[in-house]
């Protein structure tokens, strides 16, 4: 009984590690998609990331910490750390890209308003935004 539960836990850990690795790959794919301005690739990768996150959540809660051996714990810690590091880089990039997009959206809006109200000083809005 104890052996079977230990083996089951090892399978769950292996599945969990596999998901962490897949997620790490997807984070890299999304990073490249953002930098290459490949919106479709980014959207597809995000869909896969969300699916992997849901699966990861289920796998993690299936692990029984009491039965987790040192090898399994190391493996999980190592992959989780790697994913964390990747996601931190990804987070910075998303934050930067998001800010860039917000500035561009504001510029588009300013441009439209300037076209509608040519008398208005556009420079004031720009400097306020900056």
């Amino acid at each position, binding site marked *: 009984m104890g052996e079977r539960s230990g083996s089951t836990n090892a399978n769950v850990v292996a599945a969990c590690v596999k998901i962490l690795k897949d997620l790490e790959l997807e984070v890299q794919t999304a990073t490249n998609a953002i930098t*290459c301005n490949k919106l479709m690739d980014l959207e597809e990768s*995000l869909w896969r990331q969300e699916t992997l996150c849901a699966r990861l959540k289920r796998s993690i809660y299936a692990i029984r910490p009491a039965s987790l051996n040192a090898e399994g714990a190391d493996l999980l810690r190592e992959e989780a750390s790697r994913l964390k590091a990747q996601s931190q880089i*990804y987070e910075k*990039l998303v934050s930067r890209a998001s800010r860039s997009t917000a500035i561009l959206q504001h510029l588009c809006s300013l*441009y439209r308003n300037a076209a509608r109200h040519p008398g208005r000083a556009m420079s004031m809005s720009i400097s306020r935004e900056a």
Partner: protein
Amino acid sequence: MIGLNSSLSIATEALGAQTAALEVANNNIANANTPGYSRQVVSLSSAASIQNGTTVDEGVSYQGFTSVRDTVLDMAINAATSDQGSLTAQNTLLTQINSAFSGTTTGIGASLSTLFSDLSALSTTPSDSSARQTVLSDANALVDAFQQGAAALSNASSAANQQVSSAVAQVNELSQQIAALNGQIASAGANGSDGGALTDQRDELTTQLAQLLGVSTTQTGGTPTLTTTNGSPLVIGDSSYQLQVTTAADGTTHVLDGQGNDITDELTGGTIGGAITARDNTIPALSQQLDALASQFASAMNNAQAAGYDLNGNPGAAMFTVPATGSAAAGITVALTNGSQIAASSDGSTGSSGNVTTLLAVQSTNLPSAANPTDSYANLVGNIGFAGSQASSGLTATTSSLQQLTSQQGSESGVSIDEETSNLIRYQQAYTASARVISTINDMYTVLMNMSLGES
């Protein structure tokens, strides 16, 4: 699986690429309504290397940016612009001529009609000096109308000469600016830049040049070359070749290339081509027709005069004088100085009006041009109207074609704020979703760390 250092390197490249993309997008949006601006796109390529037989993703490499252009479309626009310039010049000149010939109460047609009407009245009172003086005044009015018609054609020809001179000066100025831009574009290229804004400026100036003159653009060994359609160089690389104007013996303005060769007859398209076509083809044909009418009408009237006798019983003298050389319409004058000289009498008696019938017959008798004077004049007016109508309808068609081409260019090279905005919204939604995933990853990381640390 790549290491953390590689990831950091990829991210650094990525942030650089993002900054470049932001600058390009900013530039595109700011220039959405700039005439001649071509949308710029960022050139990024995936960086990868093969290590131990495995392809390792190394992120993205920023290659610079390029402007979106369609050379064939640009050439089509220049050709259409050139046609438009030519037809505009012709249409302007022909409208000017048409207004001088289109009057129904004044002008040659009305004067002819009045002359014959008053001659008809003279037949009932051949000895009435007042009626004779009226006919003489009518003849003078007709001569004035002929001279005004000739002056209108001559003025249009002079206007064409001025257009050519003025346009050549503009061509030279534009050629210099284009040559200077070619130099700057070459320098930018040597520094690894696309020179997009400079190329846009050059394309815009080339289109302005096409409005003035038919041009041909080629690349000779990487050097942009701009020539007239007959091959005379205007710009080669960063050197411009100035056209010159000179006045020929007949008073017309001629165009010489950089080597001093007369290329007037070879220039087509643009304001210059249109003005030259109107000046050297259309206007001379109309002048010839008007001169023929003046000369043949004068001859017919003089012959009719010669068949009769004036109030004093003398043989009829010539009513009109036409110069032996030059324009008959411009030089036609009334030879008679007194109404009594009108040869109304057929037998030399004072009360005879028998020759008035001969004089009146000129109105309905065909001239050597195979039409009577009234119809000959109607033909002339019809030809002026037809030439004007052709130029006008051609201009309408070319303008429409040019609008379509410009619209096509705008959709390929121009910036659509709507498209940019729509993409930005999708990006923003993607970033929101990314933040959600990152948050989940962080939560999972905490759970896993607590779990694994608790056991180790």
